[in-house]
């Protein structure tokens, strides 16, 4: 499939070319049909092209936008098969094994795809063949169309050797040897070819001729199970959508039950009639397959969407898949009807994650470091603890006041101080415009930066626990050793004690 960018109506009149800088000169990278008719071909220098056709609409090559466009087209193609692979720079591979009959056969499917993209203003070249390489060769170098099973060798025979996708010098070498078409290559014994041009050529040849098949690597991993519903008449009402979700979830639940699994990650894809695809996923902390539970998570998720699910002119396909499933045994419900408390908390976390997002529901894990900023990190609560993370929190010493603050500023807040002596706690300091008289102080506790991760110039910190005249307890530090690392050390407030 080949996609070309379409520009606005204002440039309709002029031939459109896309240019990029190659070895310091602007050259045409691709051209539209009108430019092609005028004899402009990719590879021509822009100056030459301008000389021939002065009224040229020129657009700089934007590979990022092209890639994004290809991704969007790939999203759209998800409606025909879940196995879609990118074939850069501007191709897509669809594995339609077992899918074509859903659309009334391969010919109908091809028509359907062509029609949909033609609506979007894209011209496509499509081929259906037994192997991905044969299909690619036919789409790019041949007429496309449908190759009957076993007919790859015949269909690909007349194509030039470049259709094998080999490097330019090999193609050149082959043509100098008089081997111009794939059919000419196919007649030769393979051993001398491999000896002269490498194994790669032989492998590609076998694939294009349909003698060897490979699987494509789909963009998204095939889900563990999937259920979908096509609508002849697009649906747009929330109640219809919810009813569909319920029905699909019940199907999914049955599928999971048969496999003895529960889903950890659910994804609903809403295919709008105009080609927009919205994917909404929910994640659970443990495997579930109860449709009610998942539906509740979906309600939370849909309600919390920043940009609500917009049905536009309606959805004509809703698909539900479970990319991640894990074994789930039947749970014994206790006599009072409650499963267990741990499960309750896991369910609560799932609901909160669905509403607030994965990164906003957190718990702490301990790290092996003295750096106060890194000693505890907040990770998503659904984060798998990993059995290795058996690190315990350091137990506080009995009969000692808290030595670490309850709340920590990140980054530390700068304060103005009056220090007693260069190596003592400050007498008073000003934080957020109010003056604090230090009455009690303890320190210093010296925390040196970790030399193996030190960014240049991170000074050693001397920490003090101080209490002001109003009884507020602060954690201050002086950055830099006086006289050694700095002449005028700066003070920071790092945390607040209860």
């Amino acid at each position, binding site marked *: 499939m080949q996609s070309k960018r379409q520009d606005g109506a204002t440039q309709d009149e002029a031939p459109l070319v896309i240019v990029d800088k190659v070895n310091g000169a602007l050259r045409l990278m691709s051209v539209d049909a009108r430019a092609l008719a005028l004899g402009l071909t990719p590879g021509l220098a822009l100056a030459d092209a301008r000389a021939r056709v002065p009224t040229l609409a020129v657009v700089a090559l934007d590979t990022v936008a092209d890639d994004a466009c290809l991704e969007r087209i790939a999203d759209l193609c998800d409606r025909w098969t879940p196995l879609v692979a990118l074939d850069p720079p501007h191709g897509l591979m669809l594995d339609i094994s077992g899918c074509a009959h859903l659309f009334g056969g391969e010919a109908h499917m091809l028509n359907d795809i062509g029609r949909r993209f033609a609506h979007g203003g894209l011209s496509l070249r499509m081929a259906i063949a037994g192997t991905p390489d044969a299909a690619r060769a036919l789409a790019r170098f041949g007429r496309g169309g449908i190759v009957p099973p076993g007919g790859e060798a015949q269909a690909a025979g007349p194509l030039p050797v470049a259709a094998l996708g080999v490097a330019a010098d090999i193609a050149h070498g082959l043509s100098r040897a008089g081997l111009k078409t794939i059919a000419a290559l196919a007649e030769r014994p393979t051993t001398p070819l491999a000896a002269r041009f490498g194994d790669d050529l032989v492998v590609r040849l076998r694939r294009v001729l349909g003698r060897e098949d490979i699987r494509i690597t789909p963009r998204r991993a095939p889900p563990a199970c999937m259920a979908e519903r096509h609508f002849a008449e697009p649906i747009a009402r929330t109640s219809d959508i919810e009813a569909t979700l319920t029905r699909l979830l019940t199907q999914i639940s049955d599928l999971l039950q048969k496999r003895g699994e529960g889903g950890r990650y659910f994804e609903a894809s809403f295919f709008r009639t105009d080609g927009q695809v919205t994917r909404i996923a929910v994640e659970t902390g443990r495997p579930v397959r109860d449709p009610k539970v998942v539906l509740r998570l979906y309600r939370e998720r849909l309600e919390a969407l920043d940009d609500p699910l917009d049905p536009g002119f309606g959805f004509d396909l809703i698909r539900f898949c479970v990319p991640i499933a894990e074994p789930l045994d039947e749970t014994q419900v206790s006599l009072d009807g409650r499963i267990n408390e741990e499960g309750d908390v896991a369910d609560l976390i799932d609901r909160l994650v669905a509403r607030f997002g994965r990164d906003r529901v957190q718990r702490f894990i301990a790290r092996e470091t003295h750096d106060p900023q890194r000693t505890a990190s*907040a990770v998503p609560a659904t984060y798998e603890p990993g059995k290795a993370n058996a690190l315990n929190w350091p137990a506080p010493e009995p009969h000692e006041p*808290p030595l670490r*603050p309850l*709340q920590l500023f990140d980054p530390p807040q700068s304060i103005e101080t009056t220090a007693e002596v260069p190596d003592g706690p400050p007498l008073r300091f000003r934080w957020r415009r109010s003056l604090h008289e230090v009455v009690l102080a303890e320190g210093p506790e010296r925390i040196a930066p970790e030399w193996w991760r030190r960014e240049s110039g991170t000074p050693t910190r001397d920490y003090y626990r101080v209490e002001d005249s109003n009884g507020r307890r602060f954690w201050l530090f002086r950055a830099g050793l006086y006289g050694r690392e700095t002449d005028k050390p700066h003070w920071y407030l790092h945390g607040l004690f*209860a």
Partner: protein
Amino acid sequence: MTQTALPALRRSLARLEREGTARARDVFSFGVPDIDQTLGSGLGRGALHEVYALSGPDVAAATGFAIAMALRAAPGATIPGPILWARQDYVDTEAGRLHAPGLAELGLDPDRVIIVQARDALGVLRAGAEALRCPALSAVLIEPWGETGAIDLVATRRLSLAAGGSGVPALMVRPAASPKPSAAATRWAVRSLPSQALEAGAPGLPAFAITLLRNRAGTAGHEWRVEWNRDERCFRTRQHGQEPGRAHAALPRPVGAVSANRAGTGSTDWPASATADPALAEQTTRWRDTG
């Protein structure tokens, strides 16, 4: 129709309330006889309690007090359930994010804490209400920032009903807000109190001046000075005016200079470090001056 419907509604409301209060009768105490007597039997577990910070820098005190209450409320037996902490993002900006070792220092195991970060007060309330329906939690802390219209009688009533239903204490910390009428069972104002200095003028145990602003079950307007003892998980009364060490501590005192290389000095009471390889451990010295 209204003639029959209204009394029926009233009856069902009354029944709901009775059920709520039946669970709420489950109470927890402060461990300070004076306070517990004033509160009657103690604080209701399945109820909403508000903790106001009296001024900006008292946020940490209010938070610490709420943690202490949550710890008191956790049933002593077996393994206590997790504590859910719904926090508004702005609290992190203004008062610093929660520091897990600091929680441990107050006696709360950081592994028990689940934090929900919400963008606004509404999100905080929503997370709190959702969590309060889960009876497996041992407490729910709700921490919105500042004055907000979202927290009104209806919202607090919803929270206290949810708390009553599940029997999970709801503790709402209100930094940078002034007390307003609400459906809370008790309302406290908390201020940091100078601690009882340790030797060498080091700050001591966390101390709070707490004022009971409102008490649905009894009298209000009392003020106490307490300090939190993490080892025994209980409050202790601080005597009025008892602030030893304050007079001399205010004076400048000589402090010896420390060289950067004195790694071993007085580090015997440094908490056992989690670092496996001492060679890689940072150079840390903790030393209490004796001046």
